[in-house]
């Protein structure tokens, strides 16, 4: 790990912290001594090529994969070993890889499921309107089955569904996957806007260039190990990054 520079948002306790996390799938080790800190209000990016363990990191945070050793803290409280629903109830929400919408349910039902853990009917309705404002395309397709939406609309719906939980920490797994460049740009712009309104974002991406443009800091994961971490700005100009991740994308 290279010595990283403090960025202005790194103040106080990290809202999310992974300390020496090891995760396994049976005998296969997918994560090895992973240390990550995410501070309130940041966009932190996790970069890495295929099978590096990015998705596994998110699943470990949400308790869908139990770490074999190491600790995970949310706002200073340990959450590793807790049930997924308990962790989600603490305002951590994921936009899963490949969207994974409930394809046979309507746009509206997908959004409503996002608010499954909330009970404030009025608040939910207000947030629904807000999400539809962010993604006007969804409003036109509110009663359409999610499976019949276009790829771009599906990504919007996946993000909207997560927003319905009113998350404080938003975990996103490769939101740019399979989208045309113009849509990727739009998606990242929206992520930035969501972040500007106070949501902390932990973003998994292979599209390093675009991700670093909006991120505050980033970690680079390689076969389960964090090999690099620094401010986004530094990484964008890092020659090692240039050849490994940025060259091929741009």
């Amino acid at each position: 790990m290279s010595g990283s520079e403090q960025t202005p948002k790194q103040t106080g306790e990290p809202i999310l912290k992974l300390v020496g996390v090891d995760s396994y799938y049976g005998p296969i080790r997918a994560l090895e001594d992973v240390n990550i800190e995410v501070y309130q209000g940041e966009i932190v990016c996790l970069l890495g090529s295929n099978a590096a363990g990015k998705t596994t990191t998110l699943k470990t945070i949400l308790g869908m994969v139990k770490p074999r050793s190491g600790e995970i803290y949310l706002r200073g409280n340990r959450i590793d070993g807790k049930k997924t629903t308990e962790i989600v109830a603490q305002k951590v929400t994921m936009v899963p890889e490949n969207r994974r919408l409930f394809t046979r349910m309507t746009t509206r039902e997908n959004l409503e499921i996002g608010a499954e853990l909330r009970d404030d009917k009025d608040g939910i309705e207000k947030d629904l309107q807000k999400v539809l404002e962010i993604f006007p395309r969804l409003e036109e397709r509110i009663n359409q089955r999610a499976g019949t939406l276009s790829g771009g609309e599906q990504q919007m719906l996946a993000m909207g569904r997560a927003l319905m939980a009113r998350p404080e920490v938003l975990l996103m797994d490769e939101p740019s996957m399979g989208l045309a460049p113009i849509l990727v740009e739009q998606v990242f712009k929206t992520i930035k806007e969501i972040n500007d309104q106070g949501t902390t974002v932990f973003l998994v991406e292979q599209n390093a260039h675009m991700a670093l443009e909006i991120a505050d800091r980033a970690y680079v994961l390689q076969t389960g190990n964090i090999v690099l971490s620094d401010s986004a700005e530094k990484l964008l100009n890092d020659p090692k990054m240039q050849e490994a991740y940025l060259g091929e994308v741009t």
Partner: protein
Amino acid sequence: MKLATKIGLIAGVVSIYFPVVGITERFDDRTIIDGVLTLGSTIFLVIALAAGYVVAKPRHLPGEEPEPPGPSALLYGAVASGIAGVMAGLFVLLADSVDLRTVLISVTGTLIERLSFGGSAGSAVVIMAVGGAALGALGAGLQLISQSIRRPLVIALGAALLISLTEPLLNAVIPEVLSKLGLKDDTSWLYTGGGLSVTGAILVLVLTFVGVFAWTSRGERVRQAYAGRSNRDRRLIKGGALLLLALFMAYLPQILTSFLSEILGTVGLYILLGLGLNIVVGYAGLLDLGYVAFLAVGSYSTALFVSERSSLGWTLPYWQVVPLTIVIATVIGIMIGGPVLRLRGDYLAIVTLGFGEIARVIVQSDWASPTLGGAQGILGVTAPEVFGVDLREPRNLYYVILISVILVAFISWRLSRSRVGRAWNAMREDEQVAEAMGVSIIGYKLLAFGTGAALGSLSGMFFAIKLGSVFPSSFNLLVSINVLALIILGGMGSIPGVIVGAFVLVGLPELLREFGEFRLLIFGIVLVSLMLLKPEGLIPSRRRKMELHADELEEEQYDDSAGQGGAEPVVT
């Protein structure tokens, strides 16, 4: 042409199969139209017509415009059915010259005589070939005429066949209705000789044709008018229709024979079971093959607490037995649900299958027999009196079952549109993501098992009351399979589907009784054809339709959004 040959060969084999297994001869006693057609010959007619029809059906690749069939289709149809006819004829020739009775006992002299139409076997080949070709061309011709005429025509023919086949049923009911209406209870205008009379056949054909024709040409406007109504109006119309249906069902036992009322009650029980399992399988997506266990729990719990001859030595009044039974079943449902929470799909099916068998084995075991009566079961389940209505009277029990069905259907319907139903849907589609959205998988699975168990036990209770006793042999795997089959037949997750499915699956075999040993064969043919024609079920829920007819529905949805005035083309 290749297709025509292929279909012709298949049709030929089928038309030889029927006489060989003895169906033709047996069904020749059954009149379809008095003095004109017997069921045996109808089968040949239908095969030849169908072969021609299928051959002439326009074929096209997806996305291409179907080419309208030309006159050549007539030729192909004739060829197909002609081949079938020749095959059948050659078979008659063969059977006439060689005695096949040693191997095929049904190929009797009378059969051959009949199949040769009284002439020599040689002439049978000619008659069958020519007749087949003519019918094939006729069947193919159906494809040539416009849809607006073809549909009513086919439906009218089907209706005539159906009405004739249900003669034993209807001929018992109609006089009753007529005399209630103050008319002469004479049905000879419709039925004679165990089938439709000639006038009856013409009447049915013409009426159905005109009715369906009117509906296809005007129906679109009616449907549009309906769709154009406000949501509230539509709900009122729907509610009104359902109310009418309920009233009709309530009136039915008044005109039906007691045998039919009995069947109706059994169908009702299966509807209850189906609605219960539908929650587990259709809503929550948990494939449970041991559902019969809850029927058993309900029956035994009822018998145990109600029967004076049960091992308990004391009895409880019904108003305590009902909630107690439901509670016991729910608890057992949750207990069974517990260990299988982690299992999915096929694994879950196998394990629940085991549970169903365990339930039966426990009841029969020496260990439980002092309490549950072993193979002797529990006798003396006295039916209760509710508000002075004696439920021992089958007709009264029917009403209680009917009310329960309505109630449970309503609860099911509310559930499916509630937050719980939504969570079940999400869980069924993608358990992992649902959990990541905060859906408590464990909680909702147990809720599904518990609700299903409670409803299953309710049917069990009626089952015990209806029979007046319980035996372990009633609770076998076949019940679970039947309930699952009726759900699949009707359409997973669909409440009307469950009801129609129960009528077809439980009612149909009863009505087919007159066909004796061929009952299950016909039943099987009907089931297979239904599933081939409508794999998503008879009345699918919209969600399931998606799965199997995604392309059609996408179009429909595009229209939907157009209707809402926001159909701009999708960019991505």
